[in-house]
Structures are given as C-alpha cells and as structure tokens.
C-alpha cells in the first residue's frame, strides 16, 4: 500500500493537524482512497468549516419557509398548493480555468440541486464578476462565461431571465460565476435527501463516470497560484442534453412514491452524495464500485469515488420499485444501475472486486468534520470625511454620460440576447428591469426574482454593505410589484485564514442577518466560496443575494420603462446626497473612498410597503428603485428603452446638484404616475407618512434638466448601448 506522506496530505488540501484527527477518528492510518474521501468531505466547499459558525446566525425561519438551509435547495410557500425551490451556487475557479465549460457546468449543477427536490426549474439567474475590461484575459473570459451560461440553459430549455455583470480589477485572476436556479413544485411532491430504512437499493442514474474534475472539489477551494493553469485536464465538460433527459426522467419517476431519498452528485460526486444521504438518515451505505458505470477503462476506486462527472444522481429506492424505475431511465436513454444498499453500520463501505477497499464511519466524514472559529478582526474605519472641494468640477451631462457608457452601467443586452429568456412561455418580465417576472404555469400568479451584490460597499463597510444588498434586492422585487419572500446567498470571499478577510465575512453576515430579520426576509439556501484570490491578493468581499418574491395576481408587468407622455414622476424616500463610494466618483474620478450610504431599515420597510401597495392598487405606470448611480442614472434607465424622455426638476432644498442627482442614498424609488392617478397616490402616501417628492414629468423625445442637460432619446440609448458592442 502507498505510504501517506506529508506531500500527499498537502496535495489533498488537508492540514497535518487534520490528518492526525483522521487517524484518531479511524483508529488507524487511512489508505489513499480513504484519504481522498476525507479530503473531499473535509474541504471548505463541502464542510463549510470556516463559515459554519457564522452561517448559523442567519435567520432561516418564517411562515413562508417550507425548507431552510441544509437541503439541496430552499423551499418557500407561494400559496395554494404551490412552492418555489431555489438556490445559488458559485463556480468561480472552474470558470477561470475554462470559462465556457466552467460556467456551463455551474448552471448544470445548480439546476440539479433544484430538480432533485422534485421541482421543475422555471428560471435561471447569474451573477458574474470579471476583472478590469483592459486586462488581457477579461474579454475572453466574459465571452466564454456568457456563452457557457447560455449554452447550457438554452439547450436544456430553461429561461435565463436575470443577473448582474460587474467589472473590477480585484477579479483579474479570479472571476466570479454564481448561478441561481428557481423551480416550481407542488407542496406535497417535495423530495429530500434523507435516507430511511436498511437494505434499500442505492441507485446510480445519469451519465457515466469519467475522470472529470478529480480533485475538483478540492481545487475549488484552494487558493490559486501560478501553476493553477496546469491543473487543466480535470476540467468537466457539461452535457446539457443529458441533463435535460435526466430532468425529465427524474420528474417522471417522482410522480409516484418510489423514491425514498435523492441527491445529485455535485462537488465530490459519489462521495458526498452517498455520505450526505447516509448521514442525514443516521444509516450506513455500502457501494460496489465495480457496478458504477464508467466511461473510461481501468478506473480506480479512488477515481470513481472522487470523479466530478456531471449529470449524475444517486437515488435510494423503495424495495420492489427497481424495475419500474429502470424502465423510466431506459426510456430516456440513461444509465440506471443499482450500485449498493443502505446498511445499519453507520459506515461508508466501499467494495471493489469483492474486496473491501475502504470503510469509514459516516460521522467521521460528516458530523465530525472540522469546524473552525477562525480569528477575525473588525474593520478599521477611516473617520475622515472625503473632501469634495478638491475635485475638478464636472458638468452634470458629462458625468451622466460617463456613467451610462461605462462597462458597469452599460446596457447588458449584448449578454441577455444570448440567453433564451422566453422558453417555457411564462416570462412576463425579461432581463432589463429591476427583477424578472415568471408566471406560474397555467395560473395567474407569478414570482419575481433578482440577484444583487455591492462589493465596493462591502469592502468599505461590511456591515452596512451586507445590509444594503439585502435591501437592494428587496427593493428590486418591490419595484416590480412582488412581495419579497426569502433569499438565497452566495458568499464569495478571499482567504479565510487572513483575519481581515474573515472579518469582512463575519461583518457582512452581521449586516445580512440584521436586514433579513428586520424585513422578515429569511435565508433559505446558499453557498460559500472562500479562497478567491491569487498570491495573497484577495477579491473584494462579494456576497451575492438572490431573492424571490410573489405577485399574487399578475395583470400587467410594470417594467421600469416610461409608459406614457406627461406622467408625473415622483420619488419616494429622502435624498441626502451621499457621494462617498458612489459611481459618480468611481466612473468620473476613479475614486473609491469613504463609506457607503447609511441603511435605515425602518424607512426601507415603510417605503417598500407603500410602493407595493400603490402597485397592487394599479396606480403606477412604471417604477424603478434608485441604486448605484443615484437619481439621474435611475431616471435615464427608465427613459432608455422606452419611447419617452423626461423633464426633470431641479432640487428645491439641496443646492448641490451633483449630490442631488448622483447621491446614492438608500430606500428610494421613482414612480411614474399618470395625471389621473396622481391625487390618489398623493393621498395614500400622505396617509402612510411616506416621504415623497414630485421630481418631474415624462415628455416626448428628450431627456432633460432645464439649463443643465438635454439629450435626445436616441442618443441616450446609444450612449448606454455602445460599450459591449465595441468591446
């Protein structure tokens, strides 16, 4: 037998201390297969060892929650007998190495998380972060990632309806690719991953196992170094066609009660899926590895257990259902093989050619996996106010154009046109608005979905940043008339062994927790991705929030483009003119300084509830939240893509125009109200004690502030649409 040296231990991403612990748990030395299994289960990606104690603090309960974190995906109640299943996941490192396949398999993986629970996926979203546009790799990565996301989603036939795309040089060598999937299920047809019963068949379905991504799970959470590009041959190739078959076959089998437990094979493939099912059910599992369908010849038990081949699932079947299930998978041309059974040993037992090749107590892999309370430090805040006087003066028009034509703010249709947004015929609001709207098939209710992040805010003040993203996400759902229900989150951070990074993580979570609690907006699923960075340069702290909201009766999607001439534009929420950390400073002066805007949760909630009420009473023509870029950017986004411009007033109180038009104060919305409805709206807002201002009217042809700027609508469109096309 191969001797386990320190090098081998390190290559498996395990610390010497952890290895000692393994020996203690086993009461002996592990063999290589067992070591590989420990390394897969104990790495950051599967064990959440650095994040678990912080994640526990997040609010996860609520009347609307059917299933919180801990399953393949979270589940919320949307009334009647319908539920929504959703989750977000990162595929950052694989996407940097091979952008097309990395992004594609990221989409494939998150889809499996959702349909494993019995749900038919109805929408895909993504949050993608790239390095500086001028970095030589960025363009290729952007192209590859976008076509990979599209390639998978389009082929399997699930609409990709929303997302966000951002550039910042801290992602130069470590892009972020987070994919979110949303599915619909009947409440009494939800499937879980907890094994039950001894002697039940453990069934392997889907694609064959190849040598893909071996060490992938370990790779995904090991810091990159110069050699990482050599780790290429383990790249997983996605096969969306097979996934489509797998989806249909699983949903077909799920019509009756054959399935006891089901779990997709994601990171750490067969290892984590079998261990998780056994662990949740306090059972053992015995696998005959010779039975596993293999794509290549002479695959070793080690390779079989650690392969990350895509499009595979593990199912525990009720006795006697094997034949029936087999027929279904064969109809869909998929492998179906009984590879083992559940046992009462509480051990993972691996047999190969009639020999036991490995045997590990399930608890040692799961419950006894390491948990670290890593050291972390609170952020030191710079108390000095940023001095705006030293800035060179800039015209409002010039500043607006600069922002609207920047990579971060340019219209994303170059991306979204590569995604099929309409397949399934229930997309009532496509990309380009604050949130996408998906109708529940054959019903008149709908859900709204959005993903958001604000890495700069989180960097400068993690607690406020954490709060702010939750609020922005909530606002985006409110803006399209949806009642926000719950969120999923993908926490992309640097090296957790660095105290400051760990501090960013802990503090961002404090902020997220506070906002979620206040808004009754619980976390039902999520994913953590640490070690994003290269050679000690870490990415910005980038938690991404994916939210789902409910529209009880959909009559007409609002969208945020102006609908009518001479409508009255009102702004909800106060403007203080907060410019620190703003787009205005970043895009015009390359200054990223100071604090993010304050988040006032009470205002946030009151304003949001008021807007929701107005929309539900059908008093609003269009609505948009005010976020990055401030008031003027929000207003121009409403004009672009519509047939109307606006004539915007100058502020009555605040006399610094730049602060008024570009400040990023939170909790604000712009509503387009027709003249006929204005009185009613005014009354409702006054009665509710909601701060609002009339800020202008819509008009034909021009986007205008008297004496400051006047831009032809066609021009405004061009300004916002040229960057991607010229890149």
């Amino acid at each position: 037998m191969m001797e386990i040296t320190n090098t081998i231990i390190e290559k498996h991403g395990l610390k010497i201390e952890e290895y000692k612990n393994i020996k203690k748990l086993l009461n002996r030395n592990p063999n290589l297969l067992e070591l590989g299994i420990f390394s897969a289960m104990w790495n950051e990606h599967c064990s959440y060892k650095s994040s678990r104690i912080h994640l526990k603090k997040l609010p996860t309960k609520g009347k609307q929650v059917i299933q919180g974190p801990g399953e393949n995906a979270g589940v919320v109640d949307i009334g009647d007998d319908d539920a929504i299943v959703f989750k977000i996941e990162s595929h950052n490192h694989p996407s940097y190495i091979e952008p097309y396949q990395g992004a594609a398999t990221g989409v494939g993986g998150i889809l499996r998380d959702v349909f494993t629970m019995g749900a038919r996926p109805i929408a895909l979203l993504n949050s993608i972060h790239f390095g500086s546009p001028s970095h030589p790799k960025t363009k290729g990565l952007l192209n590859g990632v976008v076509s990979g996301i599209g390639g998978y989603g389009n082929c399997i036939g699930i609409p990709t309806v929303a997302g966000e795309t951002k550039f910042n040089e801290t992602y130069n060598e470590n892009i972020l690719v987070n994919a979110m999937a949303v599915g619909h299920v009947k409440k009494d047809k939800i499937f879980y991953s907890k094994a039950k019963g001894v002697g039940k068949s453990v069934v392997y379905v889907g694609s064959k196992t190849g040598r893909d991504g071996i060490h992938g799970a370990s790779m995904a959470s090991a810091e990159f170094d110069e050699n990482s590009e050599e780790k290429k041959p383990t790249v997983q190739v996605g096969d969306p066609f097979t996934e489509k078959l797998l989806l249909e076959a699983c949903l077909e089998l799920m019509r009756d009660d054959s399935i006891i437990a089901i779990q997709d094979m994601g990171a750490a493939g067969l290892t984590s899926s079998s261990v998780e099912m056994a662990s949740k059910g306090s059972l053992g599992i015995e696998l005959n590895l010779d039975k596993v369908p293999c794509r290549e010849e002479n695959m070793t038990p080690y390779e079989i257990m650690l392969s990350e081949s895509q499009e595979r699932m593990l199912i525990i079947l009720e006795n006697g259902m094997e034949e029936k299930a087999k027929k279904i998978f064969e109809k869909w041309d998929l492998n179906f093989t009984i590879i083992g059974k559940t046992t009462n040993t509480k051990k993972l037992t691996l047999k190969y050619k009639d020999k036991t090749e490995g045997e590990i107590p399930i608890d040692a892999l799961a419950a006894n996996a390491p948990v670290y309370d890593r050291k972390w430090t609170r952020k030191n805040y710079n108390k000095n106010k940023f001095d705006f006087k030293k800035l060179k003066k800039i015209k409002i028009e010039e500043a607006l154009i600069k922002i609207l034509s920047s990579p971060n703010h340019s219209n994303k249709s170059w991306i979204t046109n590569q995604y099929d947004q309409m397949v399934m015929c229930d997309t009532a609001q496509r990309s380009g608005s604050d949130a996408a709207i998906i109708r529940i098939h054959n019903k008149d209710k709908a859900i709204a979905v959005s993903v958001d992040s604000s890495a700069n805010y989180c960097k400068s003040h993690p607690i406020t940043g954490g709060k702010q993203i939750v609020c922005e996400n909530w606002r985006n759902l409110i803006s399209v008339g949806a009642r926000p229900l719950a969120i999923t989150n993908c926490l992309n951070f640097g090296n957790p062994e660095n105290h400051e990074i760990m501090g960013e993580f802990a503090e961002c979570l404090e902020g997220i927790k506070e906002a979620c609690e206040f808004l009754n907006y619980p976390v039902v699923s999520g994913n953590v991705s640490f070690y994003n960075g290269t050679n000690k340069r870490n990415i910005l702290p980038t938690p991404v929030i994916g939210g789902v909201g409910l529209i009880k009766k959909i009559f007409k999607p609002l969208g945020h483009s102006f609908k009518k001439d001479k409508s009255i534009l009102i702004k909800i929420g106060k403007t203080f003119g907060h410019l620190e950390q703003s787009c205005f400073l970043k895009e015009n002066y390359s200054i990223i300084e100071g604090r993010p805007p304050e988040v006032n949760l009470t205002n946030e909630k009151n304003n949001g509830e008021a807007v929701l009420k107005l929309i539900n009473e059908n008093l609003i023509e269009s609505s948009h939240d005010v976020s990055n870029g401030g008031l003027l950017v929000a207003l121009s986004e409403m004009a672009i893509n519509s047939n109307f411009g606006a004539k915007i007033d100058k502020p009555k109180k605040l006399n610094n125009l730049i602060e008024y038009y570009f400040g990023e104060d939170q909790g604000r919305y712009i509503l387009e109200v027709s003249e006929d409805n204005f009185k009613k709206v005014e009354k409702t807002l006054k009665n509710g004690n909601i701060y609002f201002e009339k800020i202008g009217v819509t008009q034909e042809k021009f986007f205008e502030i008297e004496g400051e700027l006047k831009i032809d609508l066609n021009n405004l469109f061009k300004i916002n649409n040229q960057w991607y096309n010229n890149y």
Partner: protein
Amino acid sequence: MKFSVIVTLKKDVLDPQGKVVLNTLVNLGIDNLKSIRQGKYFEIDVDEVDQVKAEKQINQMCEKLLVNLIIENYKISKIK
C-alpha cells in the same frame, strides 16, 4: 500554402456529441462500432512560401484562437 488542422478532444475529456452520434448509429443498426469521437477540422490558406514560417503561423492561430488547449489537442498537416 495550404494546411489542414485537426482538433480533437484530449483523452478522458467527455465528448457529448460523439456519445450521441454513437448511440444513433447503433440504433440505426450498426453493431460493430467501438467508438466515435468528434472533433473540428480547419483548412487554412496562408500567403507564405516558406513552410517553416507558415507552420509557425498556423501554430500561433491554433494557440490563440482555434484550439482550446485546456481540453483539446491539435495536429497540423500541409495539404498543398
């Protein structure tokens, strides 16, 4: 000078297309197929008379654009 470039998937890399094509051929009644792998083919004509130089150029094109070196191999041959 004209070259052909054959681009194939590296060993052990999944070839979803090849897999489906193989199944289809088997279903069409061909029963002695052992394997099919699908790749890409390029015919490239460059205005260069020096073969060494030309090949170097084709190599460059492959590495820069035509081939995904992470999952693919390639082979250049002179046609005429």
